[in-house]
């Protein structure tokens, strides 16, 4: 009869184990199946489940810790653990069943005269271990993360080795069961059941305790930086981003006599050549707004796959993509795995306008990537989903802030862009233009309105621009030629160019205009680059320089009189500022960090499928 736990017995057992008695519990867990009519099958099932948990647990830990931010919500951890356990167990079950099957075939084929079953089983286990080690190493090495720090590599390789050896060992036991012809030895329950339960309990307690500990280690997101001073600037900044307008296309159009206003602006101010990493538009434009690379700010593409129920956005990593892909294969048993457009939910870093809001500076932001849900703060936010909502109707879901702006936007949308309206879409536009030019005009109008109101220190607007033509069948290589040849997009750009000139005219004497362009999707080849044109008082005329995408945010901070963040990798484009310029002279002391955005409470909205559809029709998703 089982009595209470006996520590002296446990220590005795351990002491005996140290002296070579008893042995591995795992071995016995598998081998204790011996004697049942289908020992090999039972062994394979047990080994598969054991190996699955063995594989899933460290994977879960790695996923939790290496995700940025670390996953600390207990519900997320539980769900991820469940997904991982199911997937890993299915995978290892297949491996174990295959090993057992091979063992059965060998034992049936060779009969009693076959080689030593122990050696055969060892061989099967070794092959499995080697395959796992090889596959995992190749998979890891084939990733960008393969080039990480030595410590990480050693840790990962050790982990791979341990997992491979463990699974190899279990597989050899399964193979052994299927190779030997076992009569019916007595079935025995594992005596250490209570101890195992205790161990699991401890593990659970440790895991539960680990959550608050990890939470305490995660820098509190959304916290404002400690007090910092701002140098007051007299002027406002209008920041216009045009997607798909790279340096090459800009020069090509200028040489053909287009975009005259922009050329003029560049001559009056400073033009910088921007080197860009290859990435999707949302990643690049969010990098420009936050000053951080996509890996950090979290918006690395147009859409992302999510695991249902897991609220913490999963960072791109070698672990998450296979997990999501495998989970989608299990659909619907694991649950629906959905694609959601990346949005502000996935953005971890503060954009310029949020940094401004920390000091109570209002801004007007129109259509910038990853601004949905429109964050509360001083100013106007027309998120990247506002246009889609206006088109499709339905109850607004935080597309605009303040929410009452939506009514006015709806009225304007109907007045200008509804079919049949007097100021409807340009009839000359070909079908392939889609609604991109309409969107640009609408957004430019909103930005212009805000700019002319004159009460926002920063007005930022993102325009789809020629990037709209990036979708098939136009390949990136012949896009520039096509744009110039077709003409309608040139006309569109010229119209935007005219509006930029209008806004420049409307600017106050201290106001600055910043126009940014990048080559767009698939065209950030080495011979092309983005550009940044700065014009206004305090900016040197006719200057040119070069920088990188991450310099945009620090440059804007400098123009607005805000301190730089030591976390940002970029630096302000100082060459654009003459020595006597206030932007060269006065700069407040840099802050260590501006902090990160508050953790989102969910990853998806009901509007997501429609937004995806819209993005697809615009060619952002293939």
């Amino acid at each position, binding site marked *: *009869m089982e009595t209470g736990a*006996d520590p002296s017995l446990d220590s005795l057992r351990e002491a005996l184990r140290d002296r070579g*008695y008893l042995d591995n519990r795992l071995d016995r867990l598998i081998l204790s199946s011996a004697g049942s009519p289908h020992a090999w099958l039972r062994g394979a099932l047990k080994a598969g489940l054991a190996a699955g948990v063995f594989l899933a647990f460290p994977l879960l830990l790695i996923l939790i810790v290496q995700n940025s931010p670390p996953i600390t919500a207990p519900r997320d951890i539980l769900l991820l653990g469940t997904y991982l356990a199911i997937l890993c167990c299915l995978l290892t079950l297949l491996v174990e069943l295959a090993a057992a099957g091979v063992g059965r075939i060998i034992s049936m084929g060779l009969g009693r005269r076959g080689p030593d079953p*122990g050696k055969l089983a060892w061989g099967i286990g070794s092959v499995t271990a080697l395959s796992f080690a090889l596959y995992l190493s190749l998979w890891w090495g084939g990733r960008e993360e393969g080039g990480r720090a030595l410590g990480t590599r050693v840790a990962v390789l050790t982990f791979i080795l341990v997992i491979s050896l463990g699974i190899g060992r279990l597989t050899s036991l399964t193979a*052994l069961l299927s190779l030997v012809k076992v*009569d019916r030895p007595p079935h*025995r329950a594992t005596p250490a059941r209570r101890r195992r339960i205790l161990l699991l309990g401890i593990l659970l307690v440790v895991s539960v305790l680990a959550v608050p500990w990890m939470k305490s280690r995660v820098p509190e997101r959304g916290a404002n930086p400690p007090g910092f001073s701002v140098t007051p600037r007299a002027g406002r900044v209008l920041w216009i981003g045009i997607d798909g307008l790279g340096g090459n296309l800009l020069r090509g159009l200028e040489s053909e006599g287009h975009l005259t206003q922009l050329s003029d602006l560049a001559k009056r101010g400073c033009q910088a050549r921007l080197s860009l990493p290859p990435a999707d538009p949302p990643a690049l434009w969010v990098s420009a707004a936050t000053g951080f690379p996509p890996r950090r700010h979290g918006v690395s593409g147009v859409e992302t796959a999510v695991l249902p129920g897991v609220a913490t956005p999963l960072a791109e990593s070698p672990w998450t993509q296979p997990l999501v892909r495998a989970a989608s294969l299990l659909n619907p048993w694991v649950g629906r795995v959905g694609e959601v457009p990346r949005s502000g939910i996935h953005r971890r870093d503060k954009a310029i306008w949020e940094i401004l809001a920390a000091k109570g500076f209002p801004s007007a932001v129109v259509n910038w990537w990853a601004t949905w849900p429109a964050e509360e703060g001083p100013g106007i936010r027309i998120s990247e989903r506002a246009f889609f909502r206006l088109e499709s109707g339905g109850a607004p879901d935080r597309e605009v802030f303040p929410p009452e702006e939506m009514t006015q936007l709806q009225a304007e949308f109907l007045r200008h862009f509804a079919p049949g309206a007097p100021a409807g879409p340009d009839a000359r536009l070909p079908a392939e233009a889609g609604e991109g030019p309409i969107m640009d005009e609408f957004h430019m109008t909103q930005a212009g309105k805000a700019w002319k109101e004159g009460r926002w220190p920063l007005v930022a607007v993102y325009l789809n621009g020629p990037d709209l033509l990036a979708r098939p069948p136009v390949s990136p290589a012949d896009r520039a030629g096509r744009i110039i040849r077709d003409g309608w997009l040139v006309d569109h750009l010229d119209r935007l160019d005219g509006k930029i000139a209008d806004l420049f005219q409307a600017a106050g004497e201290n106001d600055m205009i910043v126009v940014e362009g990048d080559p767009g999707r698939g065209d950030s080849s080495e011979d092309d680059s983005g550009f940044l044109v700065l014009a206004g008082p305090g900016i040197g005329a006719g200057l040119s320089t070069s920088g990188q995408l991450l310099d945009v945010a620090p440059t804007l901070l400098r123009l607005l009189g805000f301190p730089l963040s030591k976390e940002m990798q970029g630096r302000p484009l100082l060459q654009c500022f003459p020595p006597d310029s206030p932007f060269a002279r006065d700069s407040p002391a840099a802050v260590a960090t501006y902090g990160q955005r508050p953790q989102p409470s969910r990853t998806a909205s009901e509007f997501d499928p429609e937004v995806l559809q819209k993005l697809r029709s615009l060619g952002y998703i293939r």
Partner: protein
Amino acid sequence: MIKFSRRRRSLGKPTTRPNSVPSSTHFRDPSSPAAEPSRVREYLSAKAEAVGKALDAYLPPPDAADGGIAEAMRYTALSPGKRIRPVVLLAVAESYSAPASRSMPTACAMEMVHACSLILDDLPCMDDAELRRGRPTSHRVYGEDRAVLAAFGLLNLAYGIVAADPSLSDEMRTGVASLLSEALGTQGLIGGQALDLTPSPAGRNLHELEQIHSRKTGSLFIASVELGALLGKAPEAERQALIQFAKNLGLAYQIVDDLLDATSEAGATGKDSHRDRRGNFVSLSGVEGARRLAEELSDCALDHLTVLGARGALLRGLALHLTGRTR
């Protein structure tokens, strides 16, 4: 020296002992143990008898003119015992279809070595025992001088039998001799006895107990199994598994023996006061703890037999029998 034999005999058949380690609810599979207990009992008695006959043939015949040494040797070697070691050796060899003619001489050598150790262990300078296998000990019957000589006579004969065995290849012969020598040496029986003589007023701890057990009792047990594997030409992986089987089973057997000491009436077991004074596994872990350890050890021993497949059936049955379990 190896006391469980002595006491077990006085308890009658192990499977019917009222105080043996009970089969707990762990062993709940109602179906089929490995080899039926009745078959195991038959096997044990048949092989014990065969070994007895072979020993009788190997031992020098009693001779009035030899100073009584042959009689003294025969007195202990042929005394009624279960002959666990030679029977286990034969069973292992049989599992690999080794002919009995090849394994019997070595089995007899093993039993002679065991008998030698019993004589020496009972001497007044060691345990000073009066009874062995229900009869007066050798030195009580023949005097200390002759008892010592009989022990050496048996030891010498054991090696002689192996050396002269025509059924063994040269390689096997040296293997058998070397295994026997290891089991008897300072890391084996002799070393264990020396440790057992060392007084420990505070009672023995696990380390000491295990050291004494593994040398005094375990080494001959392991050697029996290993010799069987050698004679049966067992593959290396199975030989290793058999060694682990013997190691775990040997300790389980020892603990069961300690349990018998602890739970039986003193008169019924011929209880050795030595043991209690020195401490044993029951005094370390309590009756229930020792019972569970014995179960776990024998479980582990049985698991190691998995590699043998159907060949392990008899050994499995023997193991269950030796640890007093029905399944």
